[in-house]
């Protein structure tokens, strides 16, 4: 059994930021990451961050990941296990993980669950056919590994991810048949939508997908116009010839460990699904278990980093290390300003219901 001050599950932006903060305050940290590398989904963000106010604006996600990884690797207070999948957290405070063909047992004084999120699936006929991808998966395949998913793509969802990935597909030389969006409005930034439209790709609002066609893999998609109750309009069905259907319909938190650990959960449509009840320092209803990043509510990498910092510094304070109260205040202010304005409205609404 390994003892540690602070176990961190997840080596994405939230977990890395938390590990750094706690370790810099003097805590002994053990970090578990399921993949063989650190950085989480930052590694597929090969394009510059669009943000304006945050400290990483203008940097590529993959460079932010490299920056963190270097810092973590040379920090003597942090022990990193990559290729280690957290399995469960038990009543006696023991955390288990599968690592290199065996089971690790860890007894941490405090725990951060920063397990991230996964892409949502929507119901339509044959949605399990090869050729139906999550938008993030296409991004990874094409931007990180330089392999394209197909020749002609239907994008489902006109939020920022749908718009950005469509643009990236075109940069990679792939045709985008159309972007369809179930609601009456483009959810992403207009600057992205205009760019797509200028390139001749229609953005069809009030449209959804009914079926993927094909036997062994996608050969087309049946789409339709819908009314405000998501009912197909009569006679509006048509088939488009595509070999790839890309779903950009949102993410939901990977909350299994939180359920298993007994944290009180609440369904929040604004935050992407079931998320844990937390206090202002990101501690859940289970004492000593903290959260940060997408598992706490779907946002983006900058807020994940800030939440990670807040959780890490809160843990350090919890275990009796001295921390700068000014710094905590500053992080909270940064989070608040990130969520200000109309774009952050749904996040503010969601958090108002789960923060106690």
């Amino acid at each position, binding site marked *: 059994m390994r003892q540690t001050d602070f176990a961190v599950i997840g080596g994405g932006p939230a977990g890395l930021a938390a590990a750094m903060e706690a370790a810099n305050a003097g805590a002994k940290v053990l970090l578990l990451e399921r993949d063989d590398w650190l950085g989480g989904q930052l590694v597929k963000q090969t394009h510059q961050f669009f943000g304006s106010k945050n400290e990483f604006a203008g940097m590529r996600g993959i460079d932010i990941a490299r920056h963190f990884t270097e810092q973590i690797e040379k920090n003597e207070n942090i022990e990193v296990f990559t290729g280690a999948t957290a399995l469960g957290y038990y009543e006696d405070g023991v955390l288990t993980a599968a690592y290199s063909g065996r089971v690790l047992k860890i007894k941490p004084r405090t725990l951060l669950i920063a397990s991230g999120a996964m892409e949502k699936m929507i119901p339509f006929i044959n949605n399990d056919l*090869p*050729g139906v991808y999550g938008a993030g998966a296409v991004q990874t395949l094409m931007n990180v590994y330089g*392999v394209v998913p197909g020749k002609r793509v239907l994008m489902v969802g006109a939020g920022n991810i749908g718009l950005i990935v469509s643009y990236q597909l075109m940069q990679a030389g792939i045709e985008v048949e159309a972007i369809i969006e179930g609601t009456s409005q483009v959810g992403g930034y207009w600057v992205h939508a205009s760019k797509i439209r200028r390139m001749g790709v229609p953005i069809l609002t009030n449209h959804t997908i009914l079926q993927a066609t094909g036997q062994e893999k996608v050969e087309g998609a049946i789409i339709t116009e819908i009314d405000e109750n998501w009912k197909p309009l009569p006679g509006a069905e048509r088939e488009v010839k595509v070999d790839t259907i890309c779903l950009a319909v949102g993410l939901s938190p990977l909350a299994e460990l939180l359920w298993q650990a007994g944290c009180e959960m609440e369904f929040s449509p604004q935050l992407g699904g079931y998320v844990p009840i937390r206090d202002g320092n990101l501690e859940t209803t289970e004492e000593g278990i903290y959260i940060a990043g997408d598992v706490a509510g779907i946002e983006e990498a900058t807020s994940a980093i800030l939440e990670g910092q807040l959780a890490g510094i809160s843990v350090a304070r919890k275990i009796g290390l001295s921390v700068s109260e000014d710094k905590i205040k500053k992080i909270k202010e940064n989070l608040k300003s990130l969520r200000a304005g109309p774009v952050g409205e749904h996040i503010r609404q969601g958090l108002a219901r789960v923060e106690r």
Partner: protein
Amino acid sequence: MRIKDHPILSFEERKMVDFTFEGKILSGKEGEPIAAALHDAGIRVLRKSPRHNRPRGFFCAIGNCSSCLMVVDGEPNVKVCVTPLREGMKVEYQEGKGDINAAD
């Protein structure tokens, strides 16, 4: 298919290695996910689902959804979307749940 010209990205040069898929020799970049190499070779169907025998392919790319489980070097349930390709790997379709004793 691999991207040849990209306006802003460049891709890591890596050693090309041979591996087999269903007995056929293919090649891919060492260390890239097995699924990326299969994709490059045009292979989309990676397994058959346990209950209804439906074809399944690459979906999430983060090792979470279990759509891409394959048999690699005799070991079933390998997540090929996050498992690095190595020289000489033997990659096969997985039918159903896979036999965990088969590798012994």
